[in-house]
């Protein structure tokens, strides 16, 4: 074998080596790459899952917090002579009405929106809206008026997304004044739609 032919052989071998070596190298380098991306995909899913779990936990925590906050806002309402265990929430506020009127005033619409937000955060809560009147006027006409006041408040809550199935109404007419005094101030307080919690 001449030096020339040896050199060619080496070259060929070298090329072959390179040619065979290179793919080898590629394969070698590619294999870990695939594994890495698989690993990456796996961790992404895990991460998402974890995040989801974390989020769920957070929501759960938040819900629990909301629920706790709501629970803490509750006081049991005691009414001998009227059956059923019900409570009142300090987070849900009364709305008020003008004399012989049942329309929701703009400022009271804001109160109802805030009440609706509490209800949205506590989706298992069912409420009863009580319509009340001041002492003036007759017992029976005030029953009709109180009914309409409760219905107005309910209709507003339904219009902003609270399911009607979560809201019942009752009229107490002038039978349950908040303030027993006989003056304008008391009357204004007594013309109200009050909310009680009937299920949670």
């Amino acid at each position, binding site marked *: 074998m001449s030096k020339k032919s040896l050199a060619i052989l080496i070259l060929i071998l070298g090329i072959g080596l390179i040619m065979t070596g290179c793919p080898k190298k590629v394969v070698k380098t590619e294999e870990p790459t695939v594994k890495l991306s698989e690993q990456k995909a796996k961790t992404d899913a895990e991460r998402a899952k974890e995040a989801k779990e974390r989020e769920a936990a957070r929501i759960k925590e938040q819900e629990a917090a909301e629920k706790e906050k709501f629970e803490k806002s509750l006081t049991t309402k005691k009414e*001998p*002579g*009227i*059956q*059923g265990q*019900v409570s009142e929430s300090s987070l849900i506020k009364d709305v008020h009405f003008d004399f*012989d009127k049942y329309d929701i005033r703009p400022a009271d619409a804001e109160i109802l929106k805030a009440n609706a937000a509490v209800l949205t955060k506590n989706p298992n809560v069912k409420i*009863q809206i009580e319509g009340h009147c001041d002492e*003036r*006027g*007759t*017992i*029976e*006409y005030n*029953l*009709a*008026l109180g*009914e*309409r006041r*409760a*219905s107005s408040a*309910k*209709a507003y809550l339904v219009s902003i997304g609270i399911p009607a199935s979560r809201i*019942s*109404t*009752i*009229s*107490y007419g002038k*039978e*349950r004044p908040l303030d027993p005094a006989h003056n304008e101030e008391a009357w204004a307080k007594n013309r109200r739609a009050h909310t009680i919690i009937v299920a949670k």
Partner: protein
Amino acid sequence: MKMAKKIFLTVVFLIFIFGSSAGARVYLDVNQPTLIQIPIVLAKWKNVDKTPAALSEKGYEILANDLTLSGFFRIVDYHHLPPPLQGKTGIPEMLVLNEWTPAGGEILLAGEILLDPAGLNLKLRFHLFDLIEQKHLVGKEYEAPVQSLRTMVHRMADEVVLQLTGEKGVNNTKIAYVSRQTGNKEVFLSDFDGSNIRQITRNQSINLSPAWSPDGRKIAFTSYLRRNPDLYLVDADGKNSRRFLDSPGLNAAPSWSPDGKRIALMMSRDGKSEIFVVDNNGGNPKKITRGHGNEASPTWSPDGRQIAFVSDRSGSPQVYIMSDEGTDIRRLTYEGSYNTNPSWSPKDDRITYCARVGGRFNICTIGTDGSGLQRLTSGSGDNENPSWSPDGRYIAFSSTRAGASKIFIMHANGLNPRPLTQSKGGESSPAWSRRFE
């Protein structure tokens, strides 16, 4: 109820001893706008045989009170007679009737009472004389168990009212009403004279708007016992209370049709009060008002064909009349901006209602054709919930004239108002029964 039945069975017929007819003369026209009271002398009652004086004193007292409460009489009590007449008892002979002239009355009522030897039964006899014309008017006798003294005397008083005014009195009627005396609104009953007060409901709830069935056996009322204003029925003795209508929302302000077959009431199935009519078994509910207003306080016409009610369809509560099918609606009241609580006279074409005048509530009456508006109360607190007596001569209502709201009774022309009971107040929603015969 049982008691009433017993009395019903044992009270005996009437005897006309003198045989003279009372004639058609009506001594008092009670439809006059002003009332002149007939001066009536009540002679001391005679105790026949060994009848205890306490019985005749008691009976005398009940009678004097009944006649006073009727508003038609000025009582001349035997204590206030000239001395020779003070102790005079028994039924006078026609021949000596003139000796009663100095008594100062137009009419003389003489009575006697007999307790049978066994002490079980009472006989009560009375005679009426016209002292001006010196003639006998009527004589009657009653017999009943001794414990029915009050009922017997009421019947006697009813007869005196019939003889002198042309229509029987209402002394054997009861008034159902709501009282807060226990701290809760419970239904109570009282006799016309304020006696026999009885608590009918004891549920510590809110009980409203009692209404007598026309036969006087049942009372319908609304109670919040189950956290909804449901309609209940209770027997007049307070027994057998049962839930009758419990549609979600109002089941309130019941009014029985005069034949007792139907009940009109307020119901609010769609979030707004409407007038409904249901059968007296609770079946077949029919909504008879339609529209945007709040409808309240139905009351039947005496012929059962029309219903007066309150509606604020015009923007303020006013009294309307419609047929019992809800057709032919017409507005009755136009004066003032708050007219509620109508009650249809059982006797004629008048409706009493509650009107707000100058910020105060007063009782008015108006013809069903819209004519002849009269205001019966004024300057005496708030006056609400008017209810007619079965003879259409009186109106019971609640009033704050003496402080806390109390039931008062006045003549249908607004005269002679007097409190029904001696309670401290907290009373509302009187409902007058029929006569218990």
